[in-house]
């Protein structure tokens, strides 16, 4: 049975011990994300947004509670299965892009397909298509340092899509971009979400992103404060 929710967390908690003091980065988070939803997570820094992302992405293990992705409790998965999850089911987008400096745009986008066992020429064809889709068809052989910040984030988005993931986790994707470039990235993400049905979860401070999303989750001190419908803020149109 296909669950209605692509992601469910149940009483999810993650405590860290720093210098004998327990820090509750997440403290009992119950969240359900529908398939194809665009969710924004908002909160001051230290609210637990990144920790929540790391949990959903299988990068970190919870102190308490469960994360269920597509009906599978990921705490039951071993290292190999978690890597497979990160490779095939989840795409990451970071505030700092995290492209690999020594690789060209094309090679960066093709990298996840290598781990997925896609033959090289097929992976590169796909990477080329994705880069064309994000408007970088003429920048295939540029290195990240030869690209603008906005272009780098587009490469990162193409890379996140390389293995057709069900979920994209975007941690402050517009945090390092100017207003106009940030808007382009938001439109691109919204487009992916609508046209390809990718579930998009984005941690953000950006009002434009909050405006574009279906639901907004407000977090504070490792807990969900409230959940509101998105689109509360008018999106800003650019000529």
């Amino acid at each position, binding site marked *: 049975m296909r669950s209605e929710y692509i992601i469910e967390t149940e009483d999810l908690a993650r405590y860290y011990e720093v210098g004998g003091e327990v820090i509750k980065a997440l403290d009992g988070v119950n969240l359900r994300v529908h398939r194809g939803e665009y969710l924004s997570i908002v909160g001051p820094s230290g609210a637990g947004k990144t920790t929540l992302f790391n949990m959903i992405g299988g990068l970190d293990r919870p102190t308490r509670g469960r994360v269920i992705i597509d009906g599978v409790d990921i705490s039951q998965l071993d290292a190999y299965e978690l890597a497979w999850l*990160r490779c095939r089911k989840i795409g990451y987008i970071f505030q700092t892009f995290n492209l690999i400096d*020594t690789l060209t745009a094309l090679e960066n986008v093709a*990298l996840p397909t290598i781990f*997925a066992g896609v033959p090289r020429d097929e992976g590169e064809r796909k990477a080329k298509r994705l880069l064309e889709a994000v408007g970088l068809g003429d920048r295939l052989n540029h290195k990240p340092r030869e690209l603008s910040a906005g272009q780098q984030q587009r490469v990162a988005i193409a890379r996140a899509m390389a293995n057709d993931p069900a979920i994209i986790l975007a941690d402050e994707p517009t945090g390092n971009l100017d207003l106009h470039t940030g808007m382009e990235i938001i439109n691109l993400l919204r487009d992916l979400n609508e046209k390809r049905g990718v579930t998009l979860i984005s941690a953000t401070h950006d009002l434009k992103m909050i405006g574009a999303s279906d639901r907004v989750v407000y977090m504070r001190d490792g807990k969900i404060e409230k959940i509101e419908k998105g689109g509360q803020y008018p999106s800003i149109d650019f000529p």
Partner: protein
Amino acid sequence: MEEKREVGRITFSLIDAFRLGYDNVKRRFNRAALSMAAITLGIAFFSTLSLMDTFFRIYTQAEGGGLRMESYQYWLLLVSLVVCVVSITNSMLIAVYERYREIGTMKCLGALDQHVLKLFLVESIILALLGGSLGYGIGLVASIISVTFTLGFNIVLKTPPTSLLALLGETILLSVALSTVATMYPAYRAAKLDPVEALRYEV
């Protein structure tokens, strides 16, 4: 009806590792050159002594007399190879440190620990092949010059090329072995890196 837990394959073939590793060596040439210098110098010293030893043996067979390498030279060789290994380890540790984010990113994209390990070991083998060949070349030139001045160039001509080739093979093998041993710890560190930690890390 229960949904099948679909877990597929994750791969990182040796060919892919070599391609990525070769790219890395090429594009991060300054870092690679430092690691390679350690291998090259150690191997140059080794091959100079081994070649001299070969030439001495040919001379002894042809002309008689007991020309041999001194034992202290072997001690010197041992020390130089230990220094070589330590330098490669040091250089590789710095390389891992410089590539924290890259390693973290690769793990986010689905790389397993063993893939990261493979990548670093393959890179060290590439460096060993390059550095070993270069070191042998330097050793060959150095030993020929030395022998020409002491015993005459004739000895070089009398030496069968096959024995020089065999020595090249041995040298490359030694180079790969040393480099692999030296890279084990740095590669292990890289492989075990926690991606959450690695991505938080600001270089």
